[in-house]
Each structure stands twice: as C-alpha cells, then as structure tokens.
C-alpha cells in the first residue's frame, strides 16, 4: 500500500513538474514573441470610382530580443478569410521591415480592387499583413462615395497662368506678381498641410481645411511673390505634408531673363482735382517722371470707359484745343482722364489711375 501511495505521489509530482515545464516554456515563448500589431487607423473608407491613399502606422507592443527584425513581405486585400484562407482580390508586393516597435506604409487602395469587391456584391473588404515576429494585422475597408472616403489626394496640377494654365513661363528680371497655382484633386475632406518651394526655399506654408468639393486651387502669395531677381531657370513645387501621397510631387519651371522689367511707377495727376467741374480752357497737369520721353494722355467716357480722345506730349501739361472740344466733349457730362509715361524704347514706365471731371456749361446770356 505504501508503495502505491509513493507511486501516486510520484505521479502527482511528475504531472506537476510537467505542468510547470509547459507553463515556463509557454511563458518564455510568449515573452519572446510579439502580440498582434495595433494600427492607426483601424478602419478606412475607400472611394468608389477612384483610388484612395491612406497612411498606415503599425505599433508592435513587444519586440523579440535585441537586433531582431519584424518583417512582412507583402500585403493583400481579402474579401473573406484571413492569411492562407484569404479570398484575395489584390496584392501589394512591398515588403515592410523594422527593428523597432513602429512601422509605416502609404497604402494605395486601387480602383480595380474596389471594383472587384463590388462586382462580388461586397461593400467592404480587408487589407492584411502578416509580420514575422510581429503578428497579424487587418484593416477594415468600407466602400463609400468619394465625399466620405479617407482624406487623400488623387491628382496635382501646377501652372502659372490662371487663364491659359501654362506650366512654363519666361519673365524679365524683377518681374512682379508672378504666381504659381496648384489644382489639387482629393477624396473626402480634411486638413491639407504643405508648402510652396522654389529652388529649395520655402516661400509659404499652407494649412487649410478643404471642403468636400473634390478640388481646391492654391496659389503662392502676393507677398512675397515668386523670386525673379536671379536670371536662369527656377523650379517650383508644392510639397504636400499631409495627407501623405503615394505619387511623386510634380514640378514646373520658370525662366528669368537678363533684362530688367521696366519698373512701372504710379504717376500722380495734379490738376484738375478728381471729380471737379472745370472751365473749357483748363490745363491737365501731372507729375514729371524721370526717364519719361513722352506722355500719352487719354480721355474716356465715364459710362463705358471707352477712349474718345488722346494726345501725345513731351510736357507734363496739356490743354484741349478749342477746335477739339466741340467735337469730342459735351459740357456738363462726366469724363475720365489718365496719363501713361513711356521711355525712349516705348516701354510704359509710369501710369496713373483714372480721374473724373466735367466741363462747365456755358453761362446763359
């Protein structure tokens, strides 16, 4: 009997020992293997009818010993099932490797993948990655209209001229007012963050909320405008910081010539004062401009601003001849006048605004 008791005790001890061994082995196994990765975001909306881009960030809670590598050779889009049982409708052959607890990828959900899911009658599917030493990750993707899809860029078009949409120009040195534009097409809505860059120099930061219109047009600022003091070619880009894009940022070029753009100064009109009633023989006078070889004074009808009469002169004063007054002007009616100054090469170097006046009606006898 005593022997039986010993045998039973011995058996218990062995079982306990075995259990403890298993427990210890399991403990170390778990301690040396990562749990499944968590991701940001966990769910994303993909636009129907176009491709969608989303930045995925993986966080791995526990990392295998020093120098170990977490790697995933590819990702796949699954309608149903996971891993080996995945009903795949697309694959991303881009390996991800990290030795830290973090990894990221910019995932493009192609339009064709969305079409395949819809064709099979599904309005959602998953994107999966299996990380060696990192665990299994799955992102749920819902198919939605573009307005509530994940905020992502689809297309960027750069140009200089708002009317003709030229994406290359040549300007004179010190040309003022050169602006670059960017048409940005996107899904969803959200905060667009980026900056304008010219030859590596940041000229403006952009941070604005874009509505669900699908397209926004940005432009470089008026102050400072694009630099045109250095002859040669210059490269303009709009760098997008957020949302992350999967396509390369486009660039365009502008060329600055070696001739200076004639500076157009404001020309000050002196007499008559703006809006006054003047006698028929009243002179029109203006500020003298350095380098002006000739002035063109123009008179226009106030109602439609069409030029009705003009004169050339080298002086800074002009009086309308009596023989012209009756033919081109009417007493009591409002007219506008302005002056432009030209240099010896017939470039406009000064220009005034428009002032109004009217001729006094002749006194009744």
């Amino acid at each position, binding site marked *: 009997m005593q022997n039986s008791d010993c045998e039973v005790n011995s058996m218990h001890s062995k079982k306990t020992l075995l259990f403890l061994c298993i427990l210890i082995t399991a403990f170390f196994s778990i301690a040396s293997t990562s749990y499944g990765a968590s991701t940001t975001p966990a769910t994303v909306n993909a636009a129907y009818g176009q491709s969608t881009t989303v930045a995925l960030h993986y966080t791995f809670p526990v990392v295998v010993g020093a120098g170990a590598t977490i790697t995933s050779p590819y990702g796949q889009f699954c309608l149903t099932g996971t891993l080996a049982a995945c009903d795949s409708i697309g694959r991303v052959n881009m390996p991800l490797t990290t030795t830290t607890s973090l990894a990221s990828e910019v995932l493009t959900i192609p*339009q064709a993948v969305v079409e395949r899911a819809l064709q099979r009658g599904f309005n959602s599917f998953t994107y999966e990655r299996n990380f060696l030493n990192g665990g299994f990750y799955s992102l749920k993707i819902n198919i939605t209209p573009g307005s509530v899809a994940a905020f992502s860029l689809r297309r960027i078009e750069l140009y200089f001229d708002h009317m003709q949409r030229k994406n290359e120009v040549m300007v004179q040195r010190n040309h003022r007012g050169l602006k670059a534009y960017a048409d940005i097409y996107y899904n969803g809505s959200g905060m667009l963050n980026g900056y304008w860059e010219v030859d590596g120099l940041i000229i403006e930061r952009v941070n604005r909320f874009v509505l669900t219109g699908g397209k926004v047009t940005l432009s470089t600022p008026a102050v400072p405008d694009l630099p045109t003091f250095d002859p040669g070619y210059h490269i303009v880009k709009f760098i997008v910081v957020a949302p992350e894009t999967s396509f390369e940022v486009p660039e365009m070029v502008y060329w600055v010539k070696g001739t200076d753009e004639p500076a157009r100064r404001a020309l000050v009109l002196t007499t008559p004062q703006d809006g006054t009633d003047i006698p028929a023989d009243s002179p029109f006078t203006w500020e003298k401009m350095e380098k002006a070889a000739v002035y063109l004074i123009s008179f226009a009808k106030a109602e439609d601003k069409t030029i009705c009469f003009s004169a050339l002169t080298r002086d800074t004063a002009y009086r309308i001849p009596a023989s012209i007054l009756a033919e081109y002007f009417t007493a009591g009616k409002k007219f506008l006048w302005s002056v432009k100054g030209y240099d010896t090469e017939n470039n406009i170097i000064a220009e005034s605004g428009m002032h109004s006046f009217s001729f006094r009606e002749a006194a009744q006898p």
Partner: protein
Amino acid sequence: MHDEHGNRTTRTANKKTGKGADMKTCWLFLCVFLFFLPLAPVYAQEETAPVTDTGNAWILSSSPAPNEEVIGKKPEIRVFFTSPPAPGSMTVLLDGTDITPMITLVENGFTYKPVFIVAPGTHELSVLATDTAGNALQGALSFKTRHTKTLEEASVSADMTGIYTTTLRKDAHDGTTPYNAVTVEGTVQGKIREGANEFSFEGSPVYVEQDKPLGTGSVEKGLDLRSFVLRGEHKGDQLQAKAEFGDVSVNETPFTVQSLLRRGLKINMGYGNGALSFFTVRAPAIYGVRNTWGLRYEEDSQITGGSAGLSLPGIRTDIKATFLTGEDDSTLTYGISGIETGRRTGDVASLQVTSQIIPAMLIADFEAAYSQYDFDDADAFDEVSDTAWRVDLSGAVNEYTYDLKYEYFGRDYESIALQGGTKDREGIYFTGNAMFTNHSLSILASAFRDNVDDLSIMPRTTSIPISLDYNYTRFAQVPMGFSVQHEIIKTKDEPTGFDPVDTMTDSLTGKIGYVREKWSTGLQATYTYMNDKTGADLDTSSGNYTFTLTLTPVENWTISLVPNLVQQKNEDTDVRTDTYTTTLDLRSQPVKDLIFWDLMASYVVADATDDSIDTETTTVNTRLAYSLKQFFPPYLNPTIALKGDYQKTKDKIADTETDNLTIFLAFELNAKFGL
C-alpha cells in the same frame, strides 16, 4: 457596362482601334494657302506730292500724298501750306490722337516722326488752324502704310540671355552642385501679315550645360525648344480660320474640356453664324522638343476632338455640340502627377445651349453630356458609360451679380480631358456678389449629395457648405474684411458595419491692412474647428496667422517681411503642432542702375507639444550684381554677379545638423534685337 446590381461587367471586347491623321500635311496645306495670295502694288515714300483735293486747298503738298501707300513702320509725315496759319492756332490729329505737341515746325509747314510703330493700314491726318485773318482752315488726307514691299506687316524680335556660372565655394559633401554651368535662354517671335492673312510664331529656345549631372526633373542638358506655337490666320469678312501647332490651349465646354494646354494641333473656323473646331493633342504635358515635337499621332496618349457651333442672333442663343476621344497612359508628367497608373481611355459628347434671355441680366446655360470611360484598359473591367447635365442661370443687375446652378454628375461620368473631375454628385449652388462704393459682399451656399444611383450597399452623404466674404473699402489706406465658412457633412442609410459620418466645420478669417506711400502692413488670421459629432469625437482645430510688412524707404529699395504661424491641434490627444515661418525679401539698387542687391530668405521652426517634432531650417539666396551696360552698345546688357546659397537644418529630436554654403560668380549677357 453595368449589370442589374450596378456592378461593372468583365471585358469581352478588345482594345478600340486607333485612328491616324497626317497632321503635318494639314498644317502645311493651310500655311501654303495663306502665303500664296495675290498682293497689291505698293509705292515707296518719296518727295511731297501736290495735294489736288479741293477741300485741302490751303495745303500745298504733303508726304505721304493723299491715298498714297508708303513703306515703313514710322514713316515721316511732312505737310506744307500755301500760306502759314496763325501762330499757335494749328492742331494736328493722326487717327484721332492730337500730335500737335510732337510736330516740328518748318517754314510754311511741319514734319512729324511717329513715336510708336504705325500699324499697317489706312490712316487719317487732320489739320485744323486759323489764318492770320481769323478764318478757319481745315484739311484732311488719308494715306496707307505697310511695313515692307512684299508684306503689309512684318516683324521679328529676339531676346536672349546667356549665363556662365562658376562655383567659388561649396561644401565638400555637396556632390551635385556643378563647378561650371552655362545656361542660354530666350524668346523669339515674329509675325507677317498681308491683307486678311497672317502668320506668326513664338518660341523659347534654351541651352543648358554643366559639369555635373542635372537632378531628375524637367530640365535636361543640351539645346532645346521649351515651348513653341506656329499660328496661321485668315480674317475675312465671311470666313475666319485659324490654325495653331505647338503648345495650344483647348477650350470647349465645362463637361468636356477646359483650359487644356498641350502639344498638338488646333484649327478653328467660322463662317457667318457657324463655327467649327478641331484639335488633336498629346494627353500628357510635354515641354521641349528633344524627345518629341508632337507631330506624330500617339495611339496610347492622344486626345482628339472637335465641336460645331451655331449662333442664332435673333433669339440671342448659341448652340454647341462637342465630341472628343482619347487615351492617356501617363502618371508623372511635366507639372502634373496623379494616383492613377493604368491606361485610361474614354469618349465624351455634349450639347450646350446658351441664351441671353435678358442680356446681361439673365443668361441661361444648359449642358448635357454622355461619357464612356475605362480607368484601366488592361484590367478585366470594360468601359462604363454615364451622363451629366447642368442648368445655370446667371446675370448682373446694377451692383449685384448672381449665379444659380443645378448639376448632376453620374456615378461613372468622366471626361478623358478632365481627369480627376467631379462625379457621383447632384446638387444646387448659389453664388451672389454685391459691389458697393465702400462694401463688397460674396455669398456661396450649396447643398449636394452623392450616391446618385441610391445603391443600398453604400451610404448617402449630404454636404451643405455655406460661406460669406465681406470687404470694407471705405478707407483706401485701411482695407479690411472677414470671411466665414460653415460646412455640414452627414451620412444616412448606412449599410451594416459602416460607421456614420457627422461633422460640422467652422472657419473664421479676419484681415486688415494699412497702406502708406512708403510702407504697408497687413494681418490675416484664420481659425478652423472641425466638430466630429459621432462617438469617435475626433475633433481638430487649426490656426493660421500671417503678418505682412513691406517697406519702400527710398526709390529702388523694397523690403518685405512675412512672419507666419500655423497651429494644428488634435483635440482628442491634446497634441498641438506649431510651425513658424518667416520670409524676408529684399530688392535694392545701392547705386541706381549700376549695382543691384537682392535677397530672399526663410526661417522655419516646427515644434510639437509631444516632442515628436522639433526642427529648424534656415535658407538664404542672394545676388549682388554690377551692370556693365555703360561700356557696351545699347542692345547688349552684360552683368557680373556674385551669388550665394545657404541652408542650415537642425533636428533636435534626431540631434542632427547640416550646413551648406555655396558661392558662385556669374557672367550674364542679354541681347535684344528686332526688325
């Protein structure tokens, strides 16, 4: 195609057959037709001729003579009188412009050398005066001018700049900046015209060479013609025709193609109230001619189309039918890049009717379009077709303008020439503007929805954006204004498993400035808050504050300083990212027209409250130049310049710092000539 559930069907047909056209032959034929037209006889300007017109009896002779045709761009005018008019009584008009202050009085007459180029054609010279007895004298004569014997108008001009740059200093680790570089750039343009026919050209030749490889981009080494346009035009009384080859701009309707600037051929013709257009252009944007001139029809990347229009002036209505077809396999091209990588193909047809119901006050514009589009020719899915249409009422009444529009875009509507455009949307839009003496106001209100086919497997989203923009201009020196934006985005009929979307975003902007003669300043602040009303509660806020200061202390000195702060905050995690950017711009002439000093600099600091970002970047570009123009003929403009580029980047998180300074010496020569 779509099945009964709205899903695409798989491909059964092969690729569409391609088309071909000999564009070169068509263009050459048009130019030959325009060139070889009969020319009128011309006469050279010689001595003054007697004036036999009895109405000009007091004008003895003139050059040009009455109805004479002279050759020249600035032909001298000489007039002699039988007896001189009273001093100070003469007024001389040329084409309605008083040139009296510009004439030179000679014995018994005057001469005049035109200041500006006289346009070819008919001109009228009028002379008004009084004689010594006080009698009115009046005379008028017509004459014609042309630029050359052969051609009524002819001009050619070129403006070229050559730059040689040598690097005086660069950092040892900079492997990309060249030691020596040459750039030649410029524009060449010309025009010839005879009667109703005209031919013109413009081009931008460039040459780039350096002893290091150029970075990947759109500029390549060697000689190139960056952009060009050849244009032939006929402006007859009944028939007008224009043909352009090169970098042409194509515009038809909002649903088909607008402002598409591409390399190719475009022809427009008008006869009476009818108009025809035809175009064939490359789908991707290309610059330069070294890889291709764009003459050949490219089956995989060409867009071809045209339109026919009819104007009905009796009912103030225009009708236009447009069709285009194309293929595009480009991804990253010059100035454009996108996410789609497949070969896109498609056709679009549209009918547009525009009517001025009440001229300027009520204009109705209607357009209906049909498209067939395949986003990837190589995949299993066939092309899909869909429709789009819109009705637009707009006009202006005194200070007010308005635009009321209804639009419908089918779920799969897309034009190959408007890729990335709107689709799967239906809505109404209203914009109104009011311009008063001291105030201006703009309002935008719209409401639209997607999922226009009411598919049960997708939610329906309603978006309602409203914005208001106001400017107060009573004080010209203190311009000010504000704008408000409010948008609601909400989903409904969400299928199982779909998280609803319910957000409200408000944005408020204020701006004010102060403008004086020698300086101006401005401040603009924008604050945006996005309220996520769902259980996720992912609210965000952002602020953007910009201050602008521009100084012109003396003539030829301009300094601009623009500090800017952008703040973005995640309301859920309370993490805020601040980005400070300061830009400095200096343009100056320390010695007027002799020494030039220009500088552009930026300083950027990015900082996050969770210490995930902490960087500083400083960039400076500067140029100090000395003009040698005084030592050379006027058509040459040489300059010697010292240029510097500096960039410093510091990352406090990664504890890294980089520093680059490069100094160049540049010789620049500009030459201009023209005929």
